[in-house]
């Protein structure tokens, strides 16, 4: 789950305008035998790797909050995971003014929250006002409403959401659960309360939430307003969805094997291979946004020398990494953006150690006695502080990279640290090498994540040329212009070796044969509205 944050580095996630669409969803062939027609009823038990901490997507930035939140809250618009198009949902139509500062939604009728109250313009206003209100301490959603000046109710079906400055990303953002609509009545109890349970208009309701343990969803009767791309209309098939939290990979896959659960989310590639071998269908979804990439701080001596950065990027054998650590279940990154991200442009070159070594020699860093290059008594080394405990074997990845760079005479000092410390040092700009992966279905992520210097944080990539390109992309809603500027941005990053793309994060969901109708939403998270159990 790249979307949103579980702890540190995914810290910086923001969804945005979806443009192009997420291909690369290879669903395994549904097992033959068993009935083909969906069978209502039954419970699906799913193990996932992290606890949202707070269920309310308005507040929590956690991807985990979306996994369950999506089933409970509906949004004004829906993003078709098939083609990424934004289609009506709670709003049956909408218009945007040219400057992208005013969005007018016409609401669908007859829609009610599970507490019985109607999804009316007032409710929409209540939701957006609440998100924007600092008291809500919204860590992510508020950012999606950047420049929000207010919502006006015009007529019994129409609302206008206004922004002080262009917010081209708002529409797609409105399709995420982060800006989903919740029953205003539930706000009264204050932010704490909605962390424990949320009330929406979705096909499921929150039946139980035991932090660090499980979240149970119950089917809501009389659900009539599924987005059109859904496989069926009406009530969800599943009577109950129980999401248990098990941070340990082995535990999740082990539990699936031993039949203790029906589905294991965020499966480790190696487990996926094993599970497939044992006949468990594994659904795979490559995600959009910033590929897992390494960054060398280009303002720190001596790494301000582009030659060195280039050498390093050539020396890192990403093919070996994805093969060794991810059994090619994750693909090599071709650019700082993943292929499924709008405006993606393959930029990466073939890594060659010999070439890298040559470049380093040329740069005037001879290999020392201990095999590490140095110049004027200064060793050519990089301190890399990454988050521990690491996920996706990123600790091993770090050690592999360390060895690969050592081979060309670059010393890497690994410094695994608690989340807090890593973030702290990043916000101080006090880092030499760091890593980020980051989901968002829009290239604008490059600006908000790598460029933004908000909160006094020095940008991860301070580069004028890049900044201009990204600014251009953000200023317009014109697809052609945007694509062009993002291509320039990626070229700039590649040629300056400002980022070293490693792999494309991918969501792996393993299920037992009885589970049918697994679907992913546009963000790449599994959804259970169409899911049913064949037993």
């Amino acid at each position: 789950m790249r979307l949103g944050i579980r702890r540190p580095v995914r810290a910086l996630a923001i969804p945005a305008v979806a443009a192009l669409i997420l291909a690369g969803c290879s669903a395994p062939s549904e097992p033959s035998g068993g009935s083909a027609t969906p069978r209502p009823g039954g419970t699906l038990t799913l193990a996932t790797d992290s606890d949202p901490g707070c269920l309310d997507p308005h507040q929590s930035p956690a991807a985990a909050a979306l996994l369950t939140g999506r089933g409970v809250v509906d949004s004004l618009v829906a993003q078709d995971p098939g083609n990424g198009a934004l289609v009506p949902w709670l709003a049956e139509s909408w218009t945007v003014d040219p400057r992208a500062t005013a969005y007018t939604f016409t609401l669908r009728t007859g829609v009610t929250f599970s507490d019985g109250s109607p999804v009316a313009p007032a409710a929409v206003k209540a939701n957006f006002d609440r998100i924007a209100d600092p008291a809500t301490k919204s860590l992510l959603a508020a950012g999606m409403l950047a420049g929000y000046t207010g919502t006006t109710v015009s007529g019994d079906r129409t609302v206008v959401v206004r922004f002080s400055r262009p917010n081209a990303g708002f529409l797609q953002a409105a399709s995420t659960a982060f800006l989903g609509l919740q029953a205003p009545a539930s706000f009264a109890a204050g932010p704490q309360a909605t962390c424990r349970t949320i009330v929406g208009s979705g096909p499921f309701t929150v039946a139980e939430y035991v932090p660090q343990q499980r979240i149970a969803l119950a089917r809501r009767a009389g659900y009539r307003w599924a987005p059109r791309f859904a496989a069926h209309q009406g009530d969800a098939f599943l009577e109950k969805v129980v999401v248990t939290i098990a941070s340990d990979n082995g535990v999740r896959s082990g539990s699936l094997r031993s039949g203790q659960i029906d589905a294991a989310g965020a499966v480790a590639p190696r487990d996926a291979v094993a599970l497939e071998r044992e006949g468990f269908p594994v659904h795979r979804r490559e995600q959009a946004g910033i590929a897992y990439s390494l960054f060398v701080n280009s303002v720190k001596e001596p790494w301000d020398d582009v030659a060195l950065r280039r050498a390093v990027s050539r020396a890192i054998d990403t093919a070996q990494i994805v093969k060794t650590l991810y059994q090619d279940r994750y693909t090599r990154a071709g650019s700082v953006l993943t292929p499924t991200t709008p405006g993606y442009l393959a930029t990466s070159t073939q890594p060659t150690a010999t070439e890298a070594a040559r470049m380093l020699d040329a740069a005037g860093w001879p290999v020392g006695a201990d095999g590490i290059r140095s110049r004027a008594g200064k060793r050519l080394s990089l301190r890399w502080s990454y988050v521990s405990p690491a996920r996706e074997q990123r600790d091993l990845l770090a050690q592999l990279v360390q060895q690969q760079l050592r081979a060309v005479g670059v010393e890497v000092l690994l410094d695994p640290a608690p989340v807090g410390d890593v973030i702290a040092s990043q916000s101080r700009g006090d880092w030499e090498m760091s890593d980020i992966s980051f989901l968002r279905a829009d290239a604008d992520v490059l600006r908000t994540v790598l460029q933004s210097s908000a909160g006094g944080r020095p940008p991860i990539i301070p580069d004028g040329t890049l900044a201009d390109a990204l600014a251009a992309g953000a200023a317009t809603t014109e697809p052609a212009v945007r694509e062009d500027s993002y291509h320039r941005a990626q070229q700039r990053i590649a040629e300056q070796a400002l980022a070293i793309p490693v792999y494309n994060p991918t969501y792996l969901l393993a299920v037992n044969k009885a589970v049918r109708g697994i679907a992913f939403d546009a963000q790449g998270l599994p959804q259970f509205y169409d899911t049913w159990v064949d037993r």
Partner: protein
Amino acid sequence: MRRPRPGDRSGIRWRMLRRRLYAAVPVLLGVVTVAFGIVHLIPGDPVQIMLGTGGAFVDPEREAALRQELRLDRPLPDQYLAFLAALFRGDLGQSLQTGEPVTALIAEAAGPSLALAGTALLLGLLLGAGGAVLGQLTGSRVLRAVLSRLPVLAMSLPAYWVATLLLQIFSFHLGLVPALGSTGPRATILPAVTLALPLAGVIAHVLGSGLRTAERESYVLMARAKGATRTRVLLRHMLRNTAVPVVTLTGTTVGSLLGGAVVAETIFGRPGLGRLIVNALQHHDYPVLQGIAAFLGVTMILISLLVDVLYTYLDPRVVSTAVWR
């Protein structure tokens, strides 16, 4: 010969207890102070970390506001006094991460922790005492030898290792107990066993050597000289005399069972104080850390009081020595 009036026993017990209570006060203060101290020595800025999760959207005003709201802008002494005052009101503040009241978080985590600790304690006592007693009663040299070595073995096994193995064998391969579901009696078995093993070892070791010592005591010989069977001697005479150190240990162990079960909790994905602590450490969640430290401190002190009371029932001498020293 000075001796308490026979009837006076319970009175003495309470006097003694009161004295212990007084003694506990400074310890308590110390505990919370240490907690406060350690927590504030931890490098790193909690606000930065909190806002860090907000990513690109941090604006300086909100940071300052937060700082103020969390009293982090005040000098340390002020924070300390505020902390004590709040503590006195039973208010442990709010988590920097979730904003929930710390008391709530602790209450939440304490449940599973207590369940686990309780089960582990029970298992440990059963296994440990059982092993020691069996080793004492059995005629077979072999069994006796084995039982006298097992404890140290049990103590030497790293918890993380035992836990992982148990999980593999019993949950995944045999599928006897669930690895998931965190709580509930069946899911508590494996973690409980993990914690119980070393505890059982400790108890068996202490009880065992205690019994071997008691065996030579002349009151034991006297009892046998009256014609008592080995079993009677063991149960009626030796056990109660050797119980005291075991009780002491059990008491001191509870703390590590409650707060020190991090490893087991991590591996079995259980909620609990241990994980709460580690998580709080990683996010510099001062209030939570202070809260837990204070909570555990109080718990331990209460337990040691309980243990003291237990002594007075187990060993009449304690009552008198407590007063007639």
